């Protein structure tokens, strides 16, 4: 059926000559319902004007589509727009010539473009130290804290008072365990939650030079006493049976919505799935913080992906891309995207519109991610991060965290090793991107 449809579309496209339509290839990694939303956006844009046609192509998971685009670039036929996950940001940024920065694109095309219209913690992630936006924010989420209210009730805890600090968290964990809760707490994306967002939320640097945004000479610094204390706390939780490790990706989410685990930290993007599957009442909350660390809580940082414009295309194509990006920033479209996918809206105006329409009264918790991202104006520690080869870097962090959680290493050794190995990767990246 799908094949027939696309074949029909192909025939239609071939049979449609007369008006010269400029095709814009858009490679993305959105599956299932998210993929449908991507197609809705592209179709909406194509119907809104006659000169350009955006063609979304699913190219596999994030790393795969990036690899495909790199190979295509080397062979001279890269797409115009490529969706790249946040950890690939540094790699894309230093690929001068291979990409066209978005601020440049908008200037060349003469499209009005105000980077300040975009949500600061979102745009900041994709902006260089001169304040120039390099890629277009697309799907952004952050890490939040989910609580199973029914399990809280059963343990004699107030279901409407989710723990705010890690101290309160520990108290609740003890009671949950005593009430017979098999798995008390689990987490998705350990590095993203417990290193990257932990740092931003407590206004601690992950690395030097504004977490790498200031240049490729950056060094990791996430082995500070505060970091060690936090990871050691998780190790102790694991020993008490309060923390169950579930894996490096989102495996933990299933453990939460099945009711097995009572508390979860994971992507705000998990909400839709949890809402669909959970047979209990739950709440979405800010990440817990350590109240003894000064300045906490600060604000959390995003994850997800942005749209990069590839270099070496014709000016006409770039004009079309600029028009498409303008279309993408439209508040109505952003609100619909936000509501359908659970990702945060990327412009301030879209957030205001969602509030005005009463979406957050209807779906409580859906605004927690934005509120947490914008809790305080971002500092150099909480703007985002930009580390070269962070695909490998994050892998190293995950490995060392696993070594700590399984008791093979103590928290300090694990974090020291992660920093040392991570710095070697950063130095390799620096050497490869000297120019």
């Amino acid at each position: 059926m799908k094949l027939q449809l696309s074949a029909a579309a192909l025939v239609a496209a071939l049979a449609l000559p007369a008006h010269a339509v400029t095709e814009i290839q858009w490679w993305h990694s959105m599956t299932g319902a998210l993929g449908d939303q991507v197609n809705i956006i592209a179709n909406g844009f194509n119907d809104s004007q006659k000169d350009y046609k955006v063609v979304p192509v699913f190219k596999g998971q994030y790393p795969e589509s990036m690899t495909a685009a790199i190979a295509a670039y080397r062979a001279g036929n890269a797409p115009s727009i490529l969706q790249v996950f946040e950890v690939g940001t540094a790699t894309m940024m230093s690929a001068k010539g291979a990409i066209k920065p978005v601020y440049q694109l908008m200037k060349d095309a003469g499209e009005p473009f105000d980077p300040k219209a975009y949500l600061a913690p979102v745009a900041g992630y994709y902006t260089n130290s001169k304040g120039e936006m390099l890629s277009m924010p697309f799907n952004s989420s952050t890490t939040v804290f989910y609580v199973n209210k029914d399990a809280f009730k059963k343990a004699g805890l107030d279901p409407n008072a989710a723990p705010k600090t890690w101290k309160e968290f520990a108290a609740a964990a003890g009671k949950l365990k005593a009430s017979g809760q098999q798995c008390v707490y689990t987490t998705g994306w350990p590095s993203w939650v417990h290193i990257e967002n932990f740092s931003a939320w407590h206004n601690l640097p992950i690395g030097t030079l504004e977490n790498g945004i200031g240049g490729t000479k950056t060094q990791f610094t996430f082995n500070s006493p505060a970091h060690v204390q936090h990871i050691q706390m998780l190790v102790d939780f694991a020993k008490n049976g309060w923390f169950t490790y579930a894996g490096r990706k989102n495996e933990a989410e299933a453990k939460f919505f099945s009711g097995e685990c009572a508390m979860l930290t994971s992507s705000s993007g998990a909400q839709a799935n949890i809402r669909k599957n959970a047979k209990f009442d739950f709440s979405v909350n800010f990440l817990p913080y350590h109240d003894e660390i000064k300045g906490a809580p600060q604000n959390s940082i995003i994850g997800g992906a942005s749209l990069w414009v590839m270099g070496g295309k014709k000016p006409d194509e770039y004009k079309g891309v600029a028009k498409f990006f303008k279309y993408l920033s439209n508040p109505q479209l952003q609100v619909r995207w936000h509501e359908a996918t659970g990702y945060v809206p990327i412009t301030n105006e879209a957030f205001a519109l969602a509030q005005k329409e009463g979406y957050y009264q209807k779906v409580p918790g859906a605004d927690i991610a934005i509120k947490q991202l914008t809790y305080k104006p971002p500092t150099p520690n909480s703007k985002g991060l930009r580390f070269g080869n962070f695909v490998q870097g994050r892998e190293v962090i995950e490995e060392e965290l696993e070594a700590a959680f399984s008791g093979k290493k103590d928290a300090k050794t694990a974090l020291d090793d992660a920093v040392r190995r991570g710095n070697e990767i950063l130095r390799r990246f620096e050497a490869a991107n000297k120019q």
Partner: protein
Amino acid sequence: MEKRAIFRSAWLPYLLVAPQIAVTIIFFFLPAVQAVWYSFQVQDAFGNDTQFVWFENFAAIFHDEAYLNSFEVTAVFSLLVAVLGLAISLLLATMADRVLRGALAYRTLLIWPYAVAPAVAGVLWAFLFSPSIGVVSFLLGKMGIDWNWVLRGDQAMLLVVMAATWKQISYNFLFFLAGLQSIPRSLIEAAAIDGAGPTRRFWTIVFPLLSPTTFFLLVVNVVYAFFDTFGVIDATTFGGPAQATNILVYKVYFDGVKAADLGGSSAQSVVLMIIVITLTVIQFRFVEKKVNY
């Protein structure tokens, strides 16, 4: 009188082997040469900025403890997969060889797993043994075994060894069965009449006569364990937890394909290439001497 067929033509033999040579050059030699070339370079992901760095990539990987750890993991993994794969399939083949009724059904079932792609095999096992949703994990939990390979390295290793071995048993089985069937019945019957029991018959007659097959399978299985198993790893453990199943070939794949570090990945694949060439040479020079053709 000369019995062999002789091609008098000067070019015909070359023409006949040309397709095979072309395939070998395009898919094996050229990429290998390219890997050697890349292993001396540091490149950014898009190939816009390339520097020739001599042996820096090699120095870097041998300085990397994760890489050194990967050697150990690979040695354990390959040994287990090759030995278990050969032992189990030999056992199954000797059993299947003796079955009189329904032999075809047994054989077909035993050969089936070979048709399954490594990645699919990995996914099947990952589902069965998944700590959160797996059927087997659930049963193990009921038996009081704490099955959580996302955190326990030994269990993760056990899982990938089982998946990789299971996948290879059919192939080995097929060759062992063919080997067994080519052993003349008269030899075994003569030994039986002389009073040799089944075990004695196996070790003094069957096993030596099977040795060419066993040797061939040993080479194939080692190469399989080194190169062909990354699909199993990629579908289950991704090399984790804490590198417990990070075999050399998976690290090559991860660093090169997922992390776009071509120089480092190429250096690793050159090292891997050297290891497998060395192993094969050793097998042919030393182990083959013990083989009776």
